């Protein structure tokens, strides 16, 4: 298993249906954003339901709100939108070994959300070993069935890119878990799972191929 660390000045993960006037950001990227990042790195559509596993941890230094000028498509008109964004964002991806080559030389630019949220590959670490134990989860989404309390929201797991426009292939409700900042938060989000001792955080490995 490898662990890829991405870093970006800003990141923004829109709630799937809140796009008028004010766009709040999800606390962590939805699975479909991870699909987008993997696809950009590889240079072709990647489907999470075909990967043996994928895990991710996201954290940022804080949030802010940006005023964004929009040039409406198809007409000479502009609008101002308020968009919430994460500042100083980090994303750790846990992937099978073969993904090293794609992140070493990504085919397209990697984005943590929108086109302005440009990310760089800061580190690719090989031979990552995770232990199974009681571990605090966070900075990720987990299935509701796991029983960890958090914000529940319906999210697209992956899109089918064989058509234009793209189409959702799999949609599920998830528990959206922010990265725990304090010992108290860590305790709230602790469950049995895999643990990255180097980062001190639990890693939920999604296996949608099942």
């Amino acid at each position, binding site marked *: 298993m490898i662990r890829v660390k991405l870093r970006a000045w800003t990141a923004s993960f829109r709630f799937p249906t809140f796009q008028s006037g004010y766009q709040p950001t999800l606390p962590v990227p939805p699975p479909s954003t991870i699909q987008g990042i993997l696809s950009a790195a590889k240079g072709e559509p990647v489907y999470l339901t075909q990967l043996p596993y994928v895990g991710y941890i996201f954290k940022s230094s804080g949030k802010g709100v940006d005023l964004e000028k929009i040039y409406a498509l198809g007409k000479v008109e502009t609008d101002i939108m308020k968009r919430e964004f994460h500042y100083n964002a980090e994303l750790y991806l846990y992937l099978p070994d073969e993904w090293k080559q794609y992140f070493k030389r990504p085919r397209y630019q990697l984005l943590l959300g929108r086109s302005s949220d440009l990310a760089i590959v800061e580190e690719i670490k090989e031979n990552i070993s995770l232990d199974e134990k009681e571990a605090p989860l966070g900075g990720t989404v987990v299935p509701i069935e796991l029983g960890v309390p958090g914000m529940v929201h319906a999210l697209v797991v992956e899109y089918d890119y064989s058509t234009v426009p793209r189409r959702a292939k799999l949609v*599920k*409700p998830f528990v959206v878990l922010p990265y725990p900042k304090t010992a108290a938060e860590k305790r709230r989000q602790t469950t049995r799972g895999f643990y990255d001792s180097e980062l001190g955080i639990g890693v939920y490995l999604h296996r949608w191929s099942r």
Partner: protein
Amino acid sequence: MRTIRKEKRLDKFLTKSEEQKTQSKDTDTTTTSSLFTWTGHPFTDAGLVALLLLSGKKKPEELSKEDIENVVNFASRLYARKEWSSGYIHAMMLPNSGILMANPSMAKKRTPEAIKKNLLSLLNEKEDPRAPICEICGRRHARIKPVYRSDFPLVGTGGVPNYFPSGKDGANICSHCLFLAQMMPLVAYRLSRVLIIHAYPYQLMLEFHKEAIEDIKKSELASTARDFKRPENFLFEKLTEIGTKFEIGKLENASITLYYFVNNNQSQEMEVIYIPNPVLRFVAFAARVDRAGWKKIVSMGWNKGCAKRLSKKPEEIPKSCSNDVYSKLLSGGSILPYFIDFQNRKVNASWRLLSFYCSEVLGLDREALEFIKGIADRIVETVEKLPDNKLSRRIRELERAEKLYQFESFFIRVEKDRQELGIPEALMSFDDFARILTSYGEDLNVSWKTVKNLLLFRIYEKLHDRLMKASAEEVEAEENEEEFEEGGEE
């Protein structure tokens, strides 16, 4: 704390392809056989809550076609009225809605029958297998007709199509999810914006929105949430009420998110307020175990300017003013100082409630809490032997400790007191001293100031009467001194 089993390496997990362990908790998220399911989306789940509450059912699979038709009849009759149509649906939720005929140009044609026909036609709409799947429920195919914010709040308009895939087709939402969104106005609370309380487990959501349906049955108008102006104040009020009914264990994995929005032609705003699980459990615990204490804690948090303005209408304060206790609980700050009335040197709540707050919300482990309590009891054992004036002065040193060295000096003085009073054994060992000063400093919420507040809580709890008596004597003495000094100057 759960027992940690023997650790297993990741490679074993990968090679054996063992099922990733999931606790089979109370999930009810996907029941493919029923017409509707919980989706995780606040607006469609709210619509489902309306169907369930009006039908007296608890689960989506219990809903019959007759139930749905009855609710549609009920909703259509209300939606055809001006108070609902232009005054609420068009003005706050679904501007120019064609389905609910809230578009002002439809006023003449708007009848309960016409609205009912539109609603039922959504349920009978044929699916096109060539259409993408619904991005909310993932079960059905999206509607062929574009879905814009006039039919589903906040999804965007055709006027600014930048955020739709392909830039022109609207949101991919199925006719059933769209139908549920049309039921949402029945359970939404109407404050200055629209409030939806999205809760999990979903049974909790039924509890939170029951009041809206009861209000509609009484007045045939949308619930105004008892005229609360602030969504979080309403939520905490309801949580206190619901908390008395719920056992804490039932809230173990519960979560609540408030969606407070407005969606009309002038503006679209959205505020997402997440209520952390420990906060839910703490408020429910407070409501069951020490309601009077919780009330006192809350009463200390009201914005002073606002509370002063509304002093002639005190019943308005909880509805209109902001409260520091609520905001701190929601933002992860500590409300420990609100457990103590520093001015009157007394506690606002029981040690039991304080202990629950410290362990469940602040994350202080029970062992640490018991350790601090033990130290506080030994301080009390020492200072209660001092004369009143000296006792008050000693405790004031702790109250006024703003820097770590001042906090440290307090313990040294108490240690000296113990020696002078001939109390056997030291107040604490060197290790304890180091622990109390430095061990709780890493987490902002659990710093030495937390320890100071906990010590003061225990001291006030045990010595309130003597401290107040001593304070009164001090004030009297100071006044006499002033009189004397003034006399001297003359």
